[in-house]
């Protein structure tokens, strides 16, 4: 879901033309900024190349290990990142559309996950005869993050 080339470099933004004194200024990120796709966004910690500012060039390059939750994590991350963007850019229609597309993908992937692996929250209904909620592993455990 790469947006079209923009005239303004991704690391640049808008400041007010006349800025009152004695106030901190962070430039506004431009509307509909260029994005990474969701998996790369999760690896890098941001969906936006313009905000991807690593320490001493230390960058996560490895694709994430394929665990049952990895696709959910990538899509959930894209939704979260777009939500924070929309909180301060509520009128950006293109970002809103992208947010909704990722919401739909997340919704579908989540249903599939719950069917295969059990509930992610108490709201998820499953067909299993037993109370699946308690089943190990829990998210903080090593085995909960293993590749499959």
């Amino acid at each position, binding site marked *: 879901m790469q947006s079209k080339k923009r005239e303004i470099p991704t690391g640049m933004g808008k400041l007010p033309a006349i800025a009152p004194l004695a106030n901190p200024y962070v430039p*506004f990120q431009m509307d509909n900024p260029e994005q990474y796709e969701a998996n790369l966004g999760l690896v890098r910690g941001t969906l*936006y190349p313009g905000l991807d500012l690593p320490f001493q060039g230390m960058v996560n390059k490895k694709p994430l290990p394929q665990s049952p939750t990895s696709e959910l*994590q990538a899509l959930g*991350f894209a939704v979260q990142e777009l939500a924070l963007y929309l909180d301060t850019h509520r009128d950006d229609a293109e970002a809103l559309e992208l947010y909704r597309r990722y919401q739909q993908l997340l919704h579908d992937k989540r249903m599939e996950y719950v069917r295969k692996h059990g509930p992610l*929250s108490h709201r998820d209904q499953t067909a299993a005869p037993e109370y699946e909620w308690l089943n190990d592993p829990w998210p*903080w455990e090593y085995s909960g993050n293993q590749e499959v």
Partner: protein
Amino acid sequence: MFSYEKKLQYPVKIKNPNPNLAKIILTQYGGPDGELGASLRYLSQRYSMPFDELKGLLTDIGTEELGHLEMIGAIVHQLTRNLKGNQMKDPAFAPYFVDHTVGVYPASAAGTPWSAATMQVKGDPITDLVENMAAEQKARTTYDNILRISDDPDVNDVIKFLREREVVHFQRFGEAVQLLRDKLNQKNVYYMNPAVDI
């Protein structure tokens, strides 16, 4: 209300136990610039925050920080799995071990228990948002310092992710100040406190 989602925001999978490093990372659980303080700061500031964008942003970032708290807890937990006797006796870890065994307790790297005195809810929107910009920078520097100290790639992948989130959150809080300023007296944004006076 809050409800639990049984997954981490970003995977944490650490092969090698390292109690020494666990004590360093623990500072982002319960230290002065850690994730517990971040989430409580933002979620508590919401009540006196005017304007829907600002209420939403504090809710969304504060909730994400709770997910980061869980990730830091997972790192500390996995770094203290399957410890051998000599690892428990490591002079850097033994004082923690004697009080908390391998439980995850909110304290700084130097052992000071988490305190609300490390954060502020001032009840003035500009003041609180500027506090949050500073908080994100302090957390970013802590993650920079962890990256200088740690040579475990399994840990550093997660730390790089969390560090980048601080950069993004700083940007959003900075934009929030500008959204707020647009709604205030353009000649003097300090004319009154919108949490009390409008």
